[in-house]
């Protein structure tokens, strides 16, 4: 793909995908964080 070796494509796909999933997971798993803002 894009003229790159398979391992390079794998690494360049998997790690950014991991960060995207991590960010989405972080955002959705922390919906209740705003509850504690009021006491600040």
């Amino acid at each position, binding site marked *: 793909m894009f003229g790159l070796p398979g391992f390079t494509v794998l690494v360049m796909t998997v790690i950014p995908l991991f960060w995207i999933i*991590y960010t989405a997971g972080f955002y959705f798993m922390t919906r209740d964080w705003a509850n504690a803002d009021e006491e*600040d």
Partner: protein
Amino acid sequence: MNIAVAFLIIYFLAMILIGIWAMKKSGNDSEDFLLAGRSLGPAVTALRLQSSSMSGYMFAGAGSLGYSSGYFGMWYALGDLGGGVLNLSIIGRRMRKLTKILGSISSIEYLENRYQSSAVRMVASILALGGLFLYLMSQFIAGGAGLASVTGISFDIALVIAVAVIVSYTFLGGYLAVAYTDFVQAIIMLIGMVWILIATLQAVGGLTAGHQQIEAINPNLLTMFGADLEYQNQWGLIIGALLIFSIGYMGWPHVVVSHMAMKKPSVSRMAGVYSTAFNLLFIPAPYLVGLLALIVVPNLAAPEQAIFEVAKTVLPSFAVGIVMAAVMAAIMSTADALLLQASTIASRDLVGRFFLKEVSENTLVKVSRITVLVMALGGLTMALLQPPSVLFLATFAATVLGAAFAPAYICAVWWRKANKVGALASMLVGSSVSVVWKLGDLGAVTGLDPMLIGIVCSTVAMIVGSLLTQKSHPVSAHILDAIDSAASVTSTRSTRDVKEDIDLSAQMPEGG
């Protein structure tokens, strides 16, 4: 006057105007000057965090790495992609809450309050001041060199101009000015870099065609292991490359202070999303442009110039000015954060804490401002002498700061048993090991990156030091309560109100 210089003048004036605006908007107390009154929302928090951690390295170092090592450089980029969200998700909310509970205004004062030790503050101040000052100096030199290359004026004069602009808005507006200028600078950096990438891809006929041309030059450049496959099976160095800009950020005092300035603890949620979006768009681009520069501008004597030379070749002349403004933005947004943080540490964490204890808040702000000037003049003087290797200074400082402080900041909010002995051991061991590893070039001998070995040793020192001294140096109940409160995601006020309602209802007369 050429168009690039005109762009730079407009850019410099805009930064100073933001400083004047911030000065009028800010109050006179330390929390206003040093933390913008804890008023910043997710977009400013995210972009300030990212731009202050991305120095001129992104234009010079990353391009050079792509040019000389090909896709191996992407290991650094791949770690960097998650650096912001990792920082915000692991320590962002908890650090914001804990610093507020403990009344900490600087990231070093926070360490004293959390670990309940003035020795922690003294050691942390000295280590941080040394690292930040070296880093600051390297950014001053990079700023002067960049300005000199665009304008054609001498390096010395360019350096003085670059430092004067940075100092003026930092001196005027404190953290608020730094945060908003960093926000604007992050957008300029993004526009400049995306513009170069698109123009470069057009010039080489697209990504696939570009890769095919690189393959004809040296197919190893398309692997993840270097131009001569020298990093094949060198997983210690590869993991270090992934860690330096992901976990390492959590130890940089000028970066983690972003958490303390958030309007609310939950700001870190959206800031994490903005941070990853910015990184995905920005970070891989300089490495890729550096690689494709082999086609556009082959046989460069100085690979650090790869992105600048590509920009001059593939962009129209007016766009070169914007790109140069982006380069200056990358340098200045890091330099202002370093300057403010270093001056805060010098004035508040050393002078105000250990030498001038009985002073008012207003006096401390004045001391901070004076220290900004003193630090800038010191950095300027040393930069004019031109230390032998700027890039070495910058990476040296970044590695030592990360290794020294990352476990101390992470354990402060996540590990109730982390105590002052563990924190002191962690900072001293982490900094010493990374300094020895870096200066002794032990990475080449052992295959282990200085950041990797530094953070591992620092973490082990924190764990062993804390566990061995739990009886002699227990963490106080007050701090344990504060950590629990910082960790909590339920409103204790709501719980208290409910309890009070129950108590009151119990006092009501029967049948009432």
